[in-house]
């Protein structure tokens, strides 16, 4: 079983100072890895079904960029969508589950500080998001050619996007008291924001009003910037996307650390 733990080699090296954050990170990582069928394989399958159906129906009808097939256009969108949703799901479901089960008390009794708590949950969420996104890419390559014009931009938006939604997940996990509140958060906030962000289309194909609305959606910038990395084309400049996404990340991380530090809903 030890080979299943991708970080086992760190076990003997980590110093006591870093042991707390490392342990929490490792636990969060193993938590989703143990149920990888549900947490990794099933979102990959879902994304591939989207790819299959949308590309089959729309391939001959929609042309977004010259020299880019609709199926290829769809791949980065689906990758980013799954990456974001899974990064969110990881931290939020872990927290709400330990809150409802009550076992979060064992974490609250430890000397782990606010920043370590944040970093450990965040890092595990990012890894799940990135893992799902990367897997979708690798499987999609079997069916369609997807260029990677600017790998640096791809990596930057993958990291920022997973960090943003991982942080969002921690906030939601702290805030929600019940599973149905979390489900509402996921269905009424995360899902609409992802679906209306240009996963399946370029916002240039929308009427001007909806184009303007889309530009208020932070998810649009993550997907557009990410897609720019693949095709060298985007609806807006990647630098603008980078600025928007990084600002959102900083704001949410600040809010999240403030919540953790005050003990909001966790130590009250």
């Amino acid at each position, binding site marked *: 079983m030890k080979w299943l733990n991708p970080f086992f080699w760190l*076990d*003997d090296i*980590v110093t*006591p*100072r870093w*042991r*707390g954050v*490392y*342990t*929490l990170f*490792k*636990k969060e990582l*193993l*938590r989703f890895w*143990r*149920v990888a069928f549900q947490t990794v394989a099933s979102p990959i399958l879902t994304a591939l079904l989207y790819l299959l159906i949308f590309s089959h129906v729309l391939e001959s009808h929609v042309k977004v960029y010259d020299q880019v097939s609709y199926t290829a256009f769809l791949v980065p969108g689906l990758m980013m969508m799954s990456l974001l949703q899974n990064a969110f799901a990881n931290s939020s479901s872990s927290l709400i589950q*330990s809150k409802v*089960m*009550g*076992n979060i*008390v*064992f*974490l*609250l*009794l*430890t*000397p*782990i*500080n606010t920043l370590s708590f944040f970093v450990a949950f965040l890092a595990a969420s990012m890894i799940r998001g990135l893992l799902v996104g990367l897997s979708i890419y690798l499987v999609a390559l079997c069916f369609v050619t997807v260029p990677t014009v600017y790998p640096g931009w791809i990596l930057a938006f993958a990291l920022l996007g997973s960090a943003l939604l991982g942080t969002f997940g921690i906030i939601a996990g702290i805030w929600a008291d019940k599973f149905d509140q979390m489900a509402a958060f996921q269905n009424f906030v995360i899902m609409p924001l992802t679906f209306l962000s240009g996963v399946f289309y370029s916002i240039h194909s929308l009427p001007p009003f909806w184009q303007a609305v889309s530009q208020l959606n932070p998810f649009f910038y993550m997907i557009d910037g990410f897609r720019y990395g693949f095709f060298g084309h985007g609806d807006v400049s990647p630098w603008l996307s980078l600025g928007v996404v990084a600002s959102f990340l900083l704001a949410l991380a600040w809010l999240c650390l403030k919540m953790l530090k005050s*003990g909001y809903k966790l*130590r*009250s």
Partner: protein
Amino acid sequence: MAAAIEITGITKRFGEFEALRGIDLQIEQGEFFALLGPNGAGKSTLISLMAGLQQATTGHIRIMGHDVQRDYQRARHALGVVPQELVFDPFFNVREMLRFQAGYFGRGPENDPWIDEVIEGLGLTDKAHTNMRKLSGGMKRRALIAQALAHKPPVIVLDEPTAGVDVELRQMLWAFIQQLNQQGHTIILTTHYLEEAEALCQRVAMMKQGRIVALDTTRALLKNHATKQLSLRLAGALPTQLLSLVKQQQGDEVILGLSELTQVETILRVLREAKVEIQDMQLQEADLEDVFLNLVGNQQGAQG
């Protein structure tokens, strides 16, 4: 040497409700200490404050000399808390959970022998690789205690560790906890079973409505607050000299309250002189339950 636990002027309000109304308490290193009181007396709130799970409205708590708010990391290193509810993480087995718990406190593979000791001491050896979800209630309780001990804290707080636990497990748990106490760990416990507190604890604090109403050694509490009882079944009427001692009379059985054991001698002499034959006699030692009912009030019942 710093006290294991030092509580000064602690109050805790929840809106209008005053859960703790000025607690001062010092527990020395190596003590085996009981915190008793009816439900709602504030015991669990006090434990939450020690553990940093909640913040006090006023006052300070120090664990081994470290303030639980300002120096929370050192304070938490020194403290192991066994929560009242049977909480567990359904993703991992017992040994993994204990390793994680120790890891949160900065302890790595060098701590494994201690984890083995805890697993063995609590009779969890057969279940070390069983998922927490699949453990029975009693086994979950043991795992819960093991989790609090995983980082080898000098001060251990057990919040009703034997609630709903069968006799065999209870005895095994106490043997293990006593062993830890002998090794120098300070033990603080709350329990519903007063006979446990009486048998195990050197000192007792009794709480009522957010205040400590009694704080003394178990022996002194028994001596000062409990009366021994002499129950008699007599062939004739009770001599008038003894009427002042009567606590209860049921049919031909009379129960006399004694403040000292030497009174038995006097009672027997009076009966002999009055030529009243004793058909049956029973001396009942005082116990902590009497003290508890005496101090905390019997309308609440003997709920720890």
